[in-house]
């Protein structure tokens, strides 16, 4: 067996092994709670991947996570740990509504309005995370904490706007903004109930991968992420890189907010704050900040979320069960990352170099 095959096998076996381990743990948990683990496995499979209809559910749940994950994954290339996805997402949604209503009011045709909404959402999310980047670069404010705080501030801002200045007076018992006219909404992919957000998510993940791996910008970012001081010495514009990459990350989360508004809700209200942000952070970390891998991990999480209902309805397990499942899967997958290069069966006969550096992490 050649080294290449060995390493490929390792990359396939470790994540699968992690999933199996999580399933075994979860099965034990279900057994303790009085449910038949094998019945539970079958139900999860049936509800998440079992038929085209249930797989669509998985895709629907996954698409906002793909975009949201990039908000963490892109800045991570510069060594920044940003968890402000939720904030960027809700503000993106809010701005998209504002943009859509304004442009729709001017009588622009649908493609124009949709483009405008997307740009408004991206701009809002982008600026929000760029602020985090700027605070990091110019004031050395810890980006993890500031982005966390800015989540709370963004959600308060959303609530304030939809309950006050942007409220549609006819949205009586659920304060919301004015709705985007039906004709300007994003539709579904032909022959499915999956909206175009999935395409946007996949395209964004692809573009992000290309940007990081194949462009000079990405090369500069990766270099700077490896060693900021060395990058400064080498004359790389670290400040501009920080702002640009934070803006791009935030723009992706903002776009996720726009998709939620333009494809699902039709207006902005507190439902926008649906934990896609923290889900995205987790997806990014599990994908080791590789955009292509992020789209696959998002599918996995989407599948878990899609199967949450069946656990309640068919097995009498409480609503929190899906959180336990999610937690076990993620803890197990995170742990499995440490196993690369440590399992004897995947070790090449001549000693391999130690664990590969982070930047070359590979798709799951």
């Amino acid at each position, binding site marked *: 067996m050649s080294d290449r095959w060995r390493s490929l096998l390792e990359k396939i076996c470790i994540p699968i092994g992690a999933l199996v381990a999580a399933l075994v743990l979860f099965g034990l948990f279900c057994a303790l709670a009085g449910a038949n683990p094998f019945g539970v496995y079958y139900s999860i499979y049936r509800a998440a991947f079992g038929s085209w209809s249930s797989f669509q559910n998985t895709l629907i749940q996954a698409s906002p996570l793909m975009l949201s994950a990039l908000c963490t994954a892109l800045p991570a290339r510069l060594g920044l740990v940003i968890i402000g996805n939720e904030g960027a997402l809700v503000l993106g949604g809010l701005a998209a509504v504002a943009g859509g209503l304004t442009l729709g009011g001017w009588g622009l045709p649908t493609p124009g309005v949709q483009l405008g909404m997307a740009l408004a959402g991206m701009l809002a999310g982008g600026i929000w995370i760029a602020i985090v980047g700027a605070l990091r670069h110019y004031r050395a404010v810890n980006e993890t904490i500031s982005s966390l705080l800015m989540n709370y501030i963004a959600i308060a801002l959303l609530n304030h706007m939809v309950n006050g200045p942007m409220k549609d007076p006819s949205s009586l018992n659920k304060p919301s903004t004015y709705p985007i006219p039906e004709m300007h909404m994003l539709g579904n992919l032909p022959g499915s109930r999956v909206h175009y957000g999935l395409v946007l998510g996949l395209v964004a993940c692809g573009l992000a991968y290309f940007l990081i791996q194949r462009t000079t910008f990405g090369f500069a970012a990766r270099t700077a992420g490896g060693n900021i001081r060395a990058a400064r010495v080498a004359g790389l514009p670290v400040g501009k890189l920080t702002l640009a990459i934070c803006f791009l990350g935030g723009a992706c989360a903002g776009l996720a907010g726009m998709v939620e508004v333009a494809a*699902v809700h039709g207006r902005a209200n507190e439902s926008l704050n649906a934990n896609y942000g923290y889900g995205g952070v987790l997806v990014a970390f599990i994908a080791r900040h590789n955009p292509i891998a992020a789209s696959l991990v998002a599918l996995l999480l989407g599948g878990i979320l899609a199967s949450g209902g069946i656990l309640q309805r068919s097995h009498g397990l409480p609503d929190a069960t899906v959180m336990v499942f999610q937690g076990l899967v993620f803890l197990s997958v995170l742990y499995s990352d440490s196993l690369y290069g440590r399992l004897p069966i995947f070790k090449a006969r001549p000693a391999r170099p130690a664990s590969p550096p982070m930047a070359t992490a590979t798709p799951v």
Partner: protein
Amino acid sequence: MRNPTFQVTRRQAIRGLLATGAFGLTVKLSGCSTSPTAAGGSDTLTAGFVYVGPKDDYGYNQAHAEGRASLDAIEGVKTSEEASVPETNAVQETMRSMIDIDGATAIFATSFGYFDPHVLALAKDFPEVQFFHCGGMYQEGVHPENVGSYFGYIDEAQYVAGVVAAHASNSKRLGFIAAKPIPQVLRNVNSFTLGARSIDPSITTQVIFTGDWADPVREAEAANSMADQGIDVLTCHVDSPKVVIETAERRGIFATGYHANQAELAPQGYLTGAEWDWSNVYKNYVSLMQEGKTLMNGGIPHLVRGGFKDGFLKLSPFGPAVSASAQQAAEAAQAQLVSGELVIYKGEIKDNKGKTVIAGGKELGQTAVELEQMNWLAEGVMGSVG
């Protein structure tokens, strides 16, 4: 300890938890969920229930879940339920899966925010399935035929609670902890106040908005600061009133409950409470459907709303602190609401800025559309909707 089907899962759960050791002390489990099986025979009616929060929240969602549980005793009815479903497209997927996998032919979507766009979208995809939404949003001609709305005028019960509160209060100051200044909530605040002021016009109600349907710390904080202000009866409109009731009891003041019966939490100070009676409503729907009536064939009305008279509401049994005269006054008010003699929103009513909102001589019955759009606080309420 609510119904027999819980027993089995509870016992299993106990066995499971005992096995885990660390939590082996858990012996008083209750309210694990049932495990409704998938669609039965052709004459079995399968109904799916969707809740926005945990179904054991001692409040809004629990009231619905208890209504659902009352259907277990009915022959030929199967139910399927899912809790903590957010108001995103996740709820569409849940309803779809209830229809596709569990074979549900009727869906009860119990959260206000499920209606637009989620219930409407599904109703288009499944014209043969009936969708019942809790919130009274249905509009003839605008919404699909297979969609219906149901809602209760719980402000009637709040009015009666206000009557009881007025008798109990020494300081003549009542407190209302509310989630958000939306019409449904404002209507409860106003009815509670009008009920109290029907006994003593000098009574005032302080309202505090927490901004969130569930925020225990802020609710407790609001309850405490009201107690500090000398307010001696509290009530609330939040998803789970547990914290408010418990805080009132600890501060030695009275409270009236909401959504469900919270008497156990405040054996001294619990006066009464405005409760939903969804079991009644759900049983009615089910018996109509079993007779072959549907929304589509006109057998079931699209808008089902009601108060005490129609069995949508009930009052919690009166607590020990309720005097005989208070009880009498409350029962009289309830009887008058049932008979229609008493109209809560009867002019002249001023708002708390002195503006007349309902002209003298004008009566707004419970179905009046003006009440659905309420954006004012009645005279005697301290606070603002701004």
